[in-house]
């Protein structure tokens, strides 16, 4: 992974390197190492310190959270129990899991065949379809929110629930389609041809041959979709805000701050609890996720 920038100076030393020139080179390599790693530590502090302060405040006492103190005098772990005892907090969890979980399953299932067709079938309108998929992917959700809201709220009477956000996922999510298609392009056609020679139809080829090979791509898409739903603020704000029983974590967190106006410690504890699952999932699926990010930008 780091091989490209290996410089001659960093090569392991051997007997031949004991000349003065080699020694200067080695010293320069060492200085370079120190410089790079000091910068690395400085950058790491920038990225990590917000989490640290966030956490430290979350375990402060009510009084201390209002002061300029950076570290807690007493560790009030009870703040976390208080957050869980807040009316609604567990409902937000349940709703978020429903939205993220069901939404992810539906969008992955419905996006796979579309992505497969766009990657491997040749048909008229394929290029146009792909362009429309990208346009949908780039479309800010606010552009079509007025008619969508009228559709879900006035015609189907589903406002105050999360269904207006979940149901559309069953009809192919543009981002998932695009990402999966990029991934499927990397599967050589020979595998598909071999399956067809063996008498598989397109559907069986997809299930038996393509899906097993596309597992990393599917994992990346599922993760993105899960995180998208977990983080979504606009959707729940529009459709669920009128009914607290349908709130998600991202939306509820803000109102939590409203209800606990001056209790920064409780708000920060709630914030930690909203961040934690995403970060835990990331640790278990780091590779798939980073692969997905790379896929969006570089491949194709």
């Amino acid at each position, binding site marked *: 992974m780091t091989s*490209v920038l290996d410089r001659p100076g960093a090569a392991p030393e051997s007997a031949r390197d004991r000349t003065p020139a080699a020694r200067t080179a080695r010293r320069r390599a060492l200085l370079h*190492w120190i410089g790079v790693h000091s910068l*690395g530590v400085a950058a790491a502090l920038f990225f990590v310190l917000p989490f640290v302060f966030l956490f430290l405040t979350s375990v402060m006492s009510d009084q201390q959270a209002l002061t300029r103190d950076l570290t807690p005098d007493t560790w009030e772990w009870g703040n976390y129990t208080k957050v869980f005892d807040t009316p609604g907090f567990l409902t937000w969890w349940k709703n978020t899991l429903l939205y993220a979980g069901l939404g992810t399953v539906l969008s992955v299932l419905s996006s796979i065949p579309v992505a497969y*067709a766009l990657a491997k079938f040749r048909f008229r309108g394929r290029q146009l379809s792909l362009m429309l998929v990208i346009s949908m992917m780039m479309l*800010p959700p606010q*552009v079509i929110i007025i008619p969508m809201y009228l559709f879900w709220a006035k015609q189907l009477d589903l406002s105050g629930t999360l269904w207006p956000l979940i149901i559309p996922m069953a009809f192919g999510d543009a981002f998932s389609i695009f990402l999966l298609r990029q991934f499927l392009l990397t599967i050589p056609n020979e595998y598909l041809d071999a399956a067809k020679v063996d008498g598989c139809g397109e559907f069986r080829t997809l299930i038996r041959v393509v899906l097993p090979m596309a597992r990393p791509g599917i994992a990346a898409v599922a993760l993105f979709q899960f995180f998208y739903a977990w983080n979504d603020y606009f959707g729940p704000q529009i459709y669920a*805000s009128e009914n607290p029983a349908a709130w998600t974590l*991202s939306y509820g967190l803000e109102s939590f701050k409203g209800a606990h106006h001056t209790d920064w410690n409780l708000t920060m504890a709630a914030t930690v609890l909203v961040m934690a699952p995403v970060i835990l999932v990331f640790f278990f699926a780091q590779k798939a996720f980073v692969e997905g990010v790379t896929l969006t930008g570089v491949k194709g």
Partner: protein
Amino acid sequence: MSTHTLRSKRRRSALRTAAFMSPWLIGFTVFFAYPLISTVYFSFMKYDGFNTPVWNGLGNWSYVFGDYPMFWPSLRNTLWLVVIMVACRVVFGLGIGMLITRIRTGTGIFRTLFYLPYLAPPVAATLAFVFLLNPGTGPVNTILGDLGLPTPGWFNDPAWSKPALTLLAVWGIGDLMVIFMAALLDVPKEQYEAAELDGASAWQRFRFVTLPNISPIVMFAVVTGVISAMQYYAQPLVAGKVASGIIGGSGQQFEPGYPDKSTLTLPQLVYNLGFQRFDYGAACVVALVLFVLAMAFTALLMRRRGGLIGAGD
């Protein structure tokens, strides 16, 4: 007979394509084409969601461009974000990408730490930053004050709210870091060796070897950055709400843009017009402005050589 089978074969293959594409075909029609046409229609109607829509001609358009006090400030803010926030993110992202490719010890740990903030849910991250940058008692101003440095009002000062948002955006640089890292590792090693033999300085190696090789990725980062700057929604809205203290349940309705319209962006106007003022017609006008801007930059993204779509086969 052969033409017959050929035709039926072709029909079968068309049917097969339609079957595989069907989820998206429905989705495209119901959740894209129909609402988009409908948005254009409502942009010419006076409609509040209760009374029947009536024809309003260009009334909504002249209201948004002429009389609606939030429209031009939000465009100015977007321009600021496009120029400064996007530039900061790209430069910083590239810097971090270059740094991580040079780190030899503990690479995995550094990479994870650099990447982590990108994952923080936007509402949670915004809430955290409003706390960290709290002018009176926040840790950042505490440390700045102890060092004898000026302590800005951050999210409570119109001049500092966008820099505060920029700080938040730069913190979540992980996506760009990964993309730049991959691009940097793809630069042919021989080119660096050749440059070094020619006695090129570090800056010259960056300018004449690194930059030309990764310029498509820089372009990609800039254009996607511009697109997301135009769509910037949850962070500025939540930051304004939390910093102002006016959050749902307190009886007051929060007018986006706190402080002093400095955090307004176009998507917030759709929310303000549609769901706070119940002026669906005017909301659709702003939605269409947003649509045209987003699609113009998407077209730019697709046109670039070896574009987003790729070779296909």
